[in-house]
């Protein structure tokens, strides 16, 4: 029997949810496992970096990397896996667009370190010790990865072949992707492996979205009794659906929560947040600056709302903090 195709999984700056989603394949995982050899998967299997280094370049068919890239180690692993793999897939919102970790790009490295190691209410650190890349302890040299200035998407560090969107991607999309790869009929490089139409298209509430939407108040989901049948925007709840790629099967909507945009924009859009902003600004019913201000105060964290998963890949990418 010829060698089965080799597949690897790796995680960078992420929450672990993407790893969960692979396990969520449930019995389907057997089908996948039968078809491929998993040669590297730190969360589940005991392989080390040196094992990967030992593999010939290009010997892995496909590697799926989740998480954004924040540290020097993640950078090194990205380059290493790129070299070893024929196909590199950015798996999940963070690898795809920077994800939630890239919201930290609103703050400088110094601000982040100061807060996390000195100022956070749960921290007691009188000597103001900060992690150092290199430290001598008991005559031994200790090292830690370097903390970089920005969180980046995978393709801002190495070339990426495909993207699986979502926070996390659905098992169905993952399975489809694996089968596509195995079939050898590869889509054009750079493709996001999900439908290229926005979510409203698949949304069960589409019928109830009015043609002449008027927003007189933005309501936050946790303060609102949400009508389970009616379009969120028609209820004044920010829904990222119009600016977000479909493929999630409207799972949040079906759970009576609005779309928060994790699948990212369609291929035609460079900046998801800017797009939803221009779409939501016009229906605001008020015309006087004070009234408009009042309505906008219903969105206390616009960056976190409109760029929740995509700040690193937005046109602005980060806030200049110097």
């Amino acid at each position: 029997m010829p060698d089965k195709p080799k597949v690897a999984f790796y995680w960078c700056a992420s929450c672990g949810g993407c790893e969960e989603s692979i396990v969520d394949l449930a019995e389907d995982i057997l089908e996948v496992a039968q078809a491929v050899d998993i040669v590297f998967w730190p969360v589940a299997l005991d392989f080390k970096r040196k094992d990967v280094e030992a593999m010939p370049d290009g010997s892995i068919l496909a590697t799926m990397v989740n998480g954004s890239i924040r540290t020097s180690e993640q950078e090194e692993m990205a380059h290493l896996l790129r070299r070893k793999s024929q196909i590199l897939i950015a798996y999940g919102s963070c690898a795809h667009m920077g994800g939630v970790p890239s919201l930290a790009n609103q703050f400088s490295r110094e601000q982040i370190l100061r807060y996390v190691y000195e100022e956070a209410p749960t921290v007691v650190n009188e000597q103001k010790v900060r992690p150092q890349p290199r430290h001598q302890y008991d005559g031994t040299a200790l090292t830690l990865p370097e903390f970089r200035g920005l969180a980046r998407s995978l393709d801002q560090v190495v070339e990426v072949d495909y993207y699986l969107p979502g926070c996390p991607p659905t098992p169905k999309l993952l399975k489809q992707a694996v089968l596509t790869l195995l079939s050898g009929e590869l889509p054009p490089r750079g493709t996001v492996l999900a439908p290229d139409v926005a979510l409203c298209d698949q949304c069960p509430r589409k019928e109830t979205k009015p043609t002449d939407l008027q927003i007189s108040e933005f309501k936050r989901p946790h303060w609102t009794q949400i009508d389970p049948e009616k379009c969120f925007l028609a209820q004044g709840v920010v829904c990222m659906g119009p600016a977000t790629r479909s493929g999630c099967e409207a799972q949040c909507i079906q759970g009576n929560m609005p779309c928060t945009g994790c699948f990212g924009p369609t291929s035609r859009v460079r900046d998801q947040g800017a797009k939803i902003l221009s779409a939501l600004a016009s229906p605001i019913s008020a015309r006087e600056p004070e009234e408009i201000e009042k309505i906008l105060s219903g969105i206390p964290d616009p960056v976190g709302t409109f760029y929740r998963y995509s700040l690193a890949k937005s046109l602005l990418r980060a806030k200049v903090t110097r």
Partner: protein
Amino acid sequence: MSERNGEVRIGVYICHCGVNIAATVDVRAVAEYAATLPGVVVARDYKYMCSDPGQEMIQQDIRDHQLNRVVVAACSPSLHERTFRNAVERAGLNPFFFQMVNIREHDSWVHSDREAATEKAKDLVRAAVMRVYFHKPLERRRVPVNPDVLVVGGGIAGIHAALTVANSGKRVYLVEREPTIGGHMAQFDKTFPTLDCAACILTPKMSAVKEHPNITLWTYSEVVSVDGSVGDYRVVVKRKPRYVREDLCVGCLQCIEACVFKEAKFDDEFNLGLSKRKPIYIPFPQATPKVVVIDPEACIQLRTGKCKKACLEACAERGAIDFEQKETYEEIHVGSIIIATGFQTFDPRRMPQYGYGKYPNVYTTLEVERLVNASGPTGGQVVTRDGRVPESVGIILCVGSRDERTNRWCSRVCCMTSLKLAHLIKEHTGAEVFIFYIDMRAAGKGYEEFYQRVLNEGVHFVRGRVAEITDWAMDPSEEGKLIARVEDTNTGFVRRIPLDMVVLAVGLEPQFDALNVQRLFGIGCSMDGFFLERHPKLAPSPTYTDGIFIAGVCQGPKDIPDSVMQAGYAAAEAIALADTGFFELEPNTAYIIAEECSGCKTCIPLCPYQAITFNEEKKKAFVNEVLCKGCGTCVAACPSGSIKQNLFEDEEIFSEIEGVLAYA
């Protein structure tokens, strides 16, 4: 990029515009720089690119160098884009493979540092070169033009436009909301500066409208909806019930005589309330059409259903009176529309210091027009409301004009109107007449001469803004008079001038419902509320909406000769459009890629021209490219990037931005 469009071969031409550009921009250096940009095959500079030799140079290069893209850096595209597109087209290239760069208005005219201006020109040229790479061949689409024309408003402007169009053989619908046409001019006695009798020159035109075989006249009517676009507007007109059948009434007026109201009791609108009328009335004897109208608020039959109906009896033979009449709606199709809805006069109650509405002998110029009119409420007698012939009359100019607190513009006709009325009042009463002015404006043919004439007639001119009109007498000579308190800025004294009659030269304002009319027809408004022309100098009657023209005071204050001229101009544009028979649409329209549209409906309410509709069956949005003006609003708003705009595709815009930002 070049795969799809084949090999891209760009020619770049930098214009000197005489010295307009060349004095500030090193045009030679810009051309040399352009020659180094990727895709550029030739780059030249020339004294006048728009001249015949300039255009021929481009055409020769297209042939010699197989150019398939052309960039001209010169003046504004609004001036010469069409010139160069045509030149390129004549050389066999699609005209939309052309891109214009404005290095005059955007560069040489606004900078003085030659080196920096030259660098800026290079940036702008680079942006165009990078953009033109992505241009696609586009077709201008033609829509047929219905030759019929709608004229809205039957003042002198609307009348003149309607007659001109009708005389060219086209069908005209003239819609007027009052029971008669004529507008403000019908209320005047004489017109400045020649003192022609207004009725003598206006009423023949009014009856010509009525009699014209090509004109359908609908008075007491209003446009309620407008659909479609240039060449094919679908308009619904509401015809209000006048309770009298226009086809049967002959205007004998016996019904008015017979009406159960023996005394006229209701304010006569045409005479601005200076006289009374009955519930059944005709605005003025020469009203056109000469058909009576019943005021439903005043008529007993219409209010209570319990009248003797004496009018009905009086008209039994003709049977023109019809209490059952209901409003009706007419739908018409026209190719173009001329809007001539005129103005309203400033309400002087907004300036309480002049006592209008408080002192009965304070009038507006329009009211005095009625007083001096032989067929007016007083039969041409200038008398105060208490029946006295005034011995002293003061006319205050610029009431509600040229004033930060009310209207900032000059109403243009009030100086001349006041001179006219000063002359007429003197003629009728021999009174002393004072004109209180800030500046006298008498620009126009024969106007300065008329001013001199009135000066010589002994009218007193006091230069100063009147502070207040009061009836508070300071000495016995002021008893029973109105006193104008004014600083005479020629002498430097504050004066108190006792008067029997005060006339306020009220300014011209947009109609109270101008905003509705503007929305209804989808045209623009200037800051002051008058309708917006396409270009203040070169296109003062067309609007930004193709096939809609404006004429008369609805576009801005002007006198009768100017209104007539603009009306003729609007008519000429409408006739030219009808005779051409088609209208060429700019191809820079938006379109929706149906497979990509999620049907989120974001775009639909945003289109200022209502060009986007939602297809309920397909659950997707669609752009009607005939209605689309290429404003780009929907393109920017579509949250899934599913709307594209010809000539403004993302790759064109982004490469242009990258080009301008890629500092050399």
